[in-house]
């Protein structure tokens, strides 16, 4: 039998705006059993994040087959399409009108293309554009948000490694680091590898392609490219990803212990220029502690009380 009153307090205290701690204290004092009931339900609540499909795995082939690193790449036209894209990229590369735009870590830049498309680059990003073809971009590293003027006859394409994202009237954000790519769509629709898997990503969907294979998940549209508003918004995101986003946005060297990387984070982190002040506020939010390490920072588990 569930304790309805305790459940009410779980919901109330979980609200980010909750501030009636006096009333909560008085309720707790009414019966010593209440604190215990609250603890039990709060612990159950903590497990809900893993149960609720914030990351509904809709690619059963990839998700059920951890033995193969990137199964989809070798199914059907995937490999052929990848080869085709590579050929196209090489062709474009050899032309002189391809140019690169890079940002240093911590620096952001906004680019307006002739067709009305806007690209915002987060820190530590390298992007190639084509002066002769405003519908092309290649993200080589880092993070960029695309607000695309849609033209059905001539879709905007972003290549990332050997993957292609094709817009269908869209605002979307792509992160590319190492072998992993993440895309979140906040408006319209994006098609992933239109010539191969052709996965449609409507607003509110995200896709990640990394060591775990291809995954499609939900994302809050306003969380997509939230770095442009000076904040990072996450729902059940691996702390490893969060770490990279922070490093890119702040321009700091940031590492995380394996234990910290394996944790997940839900919430909003406000970006702040001064790293000391930023980590003092942000690390406890993630249930971690940040310590200065040489020129950089290290995120580790625990609240930092025992060292």
């Amino acid at each position, binding site marked *: 039998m*569930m304790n*309805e009153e305790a*459940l009410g307090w*779980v*919901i109330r*205290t*979980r*609200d*980010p*705006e*909750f*501030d009636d*701690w*006096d009333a*909560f*204290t008085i309720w*707790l*004092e009414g019966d*010593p059993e209440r*604190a215990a009931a609250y*603890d039990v339900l*709060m*612990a*159950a*609540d*903590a*497990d*809900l*994040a*893993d*149960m*609720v*499909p*914030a990351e*509904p*795995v809709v690619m*059963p082939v990839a*998700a*059920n*087959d*951890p*033995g193969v690193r990137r199964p989809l790449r070798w199914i059907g036209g995937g490999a052929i399409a990848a080869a085709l894209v590579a050929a196209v990229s090489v062709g474009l590369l050899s032309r002189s009108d391809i140019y690169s735009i890079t940002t240093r870590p911590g620096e952001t830049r906004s680019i307006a293309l002739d067709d009305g498309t806007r690209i915002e680059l987060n820190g530590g990003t390298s992007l190639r554009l084509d002066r002769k073809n405003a519908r092309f971009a290649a993200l080589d590293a880092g993070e960029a948000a695309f607000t695309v003027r849609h033209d059905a006859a001539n879709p905007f394409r972003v290549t990332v490694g050997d993957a292609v994202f094709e817009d269908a009237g869209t605002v979307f954000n792509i992160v590319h680091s190492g072998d992993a790519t993440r895309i979140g769509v906040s408006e319209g629709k994006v098609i992933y590898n239109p010539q191969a898997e052709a996965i449609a990503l409507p607003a509110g969907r995200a896709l990640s392609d990394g060591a775990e294979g291809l995954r499609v998940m*939900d994302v*809050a549209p306003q*969380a997509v490219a939230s770095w442009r508003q000076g904040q990072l*918004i996450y*729902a059940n995101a*691996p702390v490893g990803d969060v770490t990279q986003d922070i490093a890119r946005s702040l321009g700091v060297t940031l590492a995380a212990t394996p234990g910290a990387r*394996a944790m997940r984070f*839900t*919430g*909003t982190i406000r970006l702040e220029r001064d790293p*000391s*002040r930023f980590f*003092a*506020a942000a690390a*406890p939010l993630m249930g971690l502690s940040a310590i200065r390490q040489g020129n950089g920072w290290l995120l580790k588990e625990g*609240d*930092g*009380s025992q060292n």
Partner: protein
Amino acid sequence: MATRLIANTGRTTGMATGLSAIFFQNRAALLRFLRARGAGEDAEDLLQDMWMKLEAKDLGPVADPLPYLYRMANNLMLDRYRSATRRERREQDWAEGAGGVMADPNDDLAVDERMILNQRLEQARGILADLGPRVELVFRRFRIEGVGQRLIAEELGVSLTTVEKDLQKAYRAMLALKQSLDTE
């Protein structure tokens, strides 16, 4: 009894109100809270821990210092509870010969385990869907995306009470599912 302080002194005056000052002004109330929260004899020690952390961290101005301190105290108690139950479970696992290795949920799971996991996700998704689109949306916004109830009510153009009721309904269903899965 508990002195209630204006929570947003820092914001209205634009001054860096030290959290530690707020901490001292509300020491008695925080102690009372920790005791009510089940800290018993350890309440004083926990308060001391909190103080050390505040000193060590040198936090900048916090928008709402008092709720921040209460939340910190509440989290301390939740951590205590979690580590206690984890210890219990570990001891039990040892006794049952299951070994003491805690599996990292992000490690690669065996295929059949992953299928069970997917089944459970589908089950949870189905239960949420059955509650109706509004209840599902409210629950997702609140629990997964961390949006406050007042904001959700504004977004949906419904009353705060409606949001509260939707959340209760979704929580009851999800916690019941969790219970049934845990005992499987």
